[in-house]
């Protein structure tokens, strides 16, 4: 697989899996507003994943659904940050905040890419992400002095660094006012991904080619 396809799949897998995790709050978030917010953010992130999978599919001669659902868990290229099953609010907000900051640094770099298709898509995604960042920033500002949130942010920080390539890590650290530490890199998945994959691909595996 060429470098472009690898990059597109890393980006698409991050967005699909973080969107899946966000959607786990649908119906059970602490407030109705957050229920709506997490559901809407999940829908956007999965929409970004679809557009990225479509570019990857054109590169690889397949289709977006096959890339999203027909690979085995070890073929996914997502960062461990998005895989974690975090059904606790401080950790959930810490991940949203760190992921959005990492994604912002990454999208800014992609907007300047020589790859016109990817740069164009990054610019489109960036416009939608403005609203995710507003949401994450409001929560981070509200919880900044809470010990549970600070502990969750420290715990997830090495994972957040693993979302972006090494050359963007100083910039990410500057944005969130933390020190660069050893990153939890992409490549080795957490056990949480296999569990998520079982659930996410169940329909597709049970009824291949199902449409609705």
């Amino acid at each position, binding site marked *: 697989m060429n470098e472009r396809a690898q990059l597109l799949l890393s980006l698409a897998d991050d967005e699909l899996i973080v969107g899946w995790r966000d959607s786990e709050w649908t119906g059970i978030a602490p407030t109705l*507003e957050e229920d*709506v*917010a997490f*559901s*809407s*953010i999940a*829908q*956007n*992130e*999965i*929409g*970004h994943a*679809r*557009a990225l999978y*479509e*570019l990857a599919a054109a590169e690889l001669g397949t289709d977006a659904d096959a890339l999203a659902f027909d690979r085995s868990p070890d073929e996914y290229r997502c960062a461990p940050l998005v895989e974690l099953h975090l059904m606790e609010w401080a950790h959930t907000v810490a991940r949203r905040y760190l992921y959005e900051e990492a994604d912002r640094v990454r999208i800014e770099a992609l907007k300047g890419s020589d790859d016109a*298709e990817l740069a*164009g*898509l990054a*610019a*489109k*995604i*960036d*416009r*939608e992400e*403005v*609203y995710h960042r*507003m*949401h994450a*920033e409001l929560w981070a500002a509200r919880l900044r002095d809470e010990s549970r949130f600070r502990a969750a942010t420290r715990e997830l920080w090495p994972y957040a660094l693993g979302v972006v390539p090494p050359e963007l890590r100083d910039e990410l650290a500057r944005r969130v006012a933390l020190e660069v530490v050893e990153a939890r890199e992409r490549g080795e998945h957490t056990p949480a991904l296999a569990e998520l994959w079982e659930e996410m691909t169940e329909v597709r595996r049970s009824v291949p080619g199902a449409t609705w």
Partner: protein
Amino acid sequence: MTTDAVWAALADIPDPEIPVISLVDLGVIRDVAVDGRRVRVEFTPTFLGCPALEVMKRAMEAKVAELGGEPEVEVISDDSWSTDRISPEGREKLRAAGFAPPAPRAAGTTTLVQLQSKAFRCPYCGSTETKLENIFGPTPCRSIRWCESCRQPFEQFKTI
């Protein structure tokens, strides 16, 4: 078949989720090119996660086929669509249907400060005494606001 005839036909397609406004009002059709029977439509989507995108694409294909053309709808995935592409007529239709139209995009990047500095008018009573209730709403393109004057919630089109 002329490009004008195709544009006129596409102007009859309602937005699947907000049917008061047409796809042409919404600004999602970037270009139409006719070459014999072949009709190429450039479609620039709104929000990437919007489930209405497929419905819009199929409706455009059906409309072109009705005219006797062979449709080719090309999806443009760049940032060429923004809420500034909604026509003045479209904005008025949104307002009449109870949606506050999006604020214009200022030059440069959308920021929190810029968004909050805009006066959002209640589509029911016209008051600007309104506040943001939730950045997110029932679809990706909408936020929820509250009018302090007539004490009703209303939906605000997000600016992107």
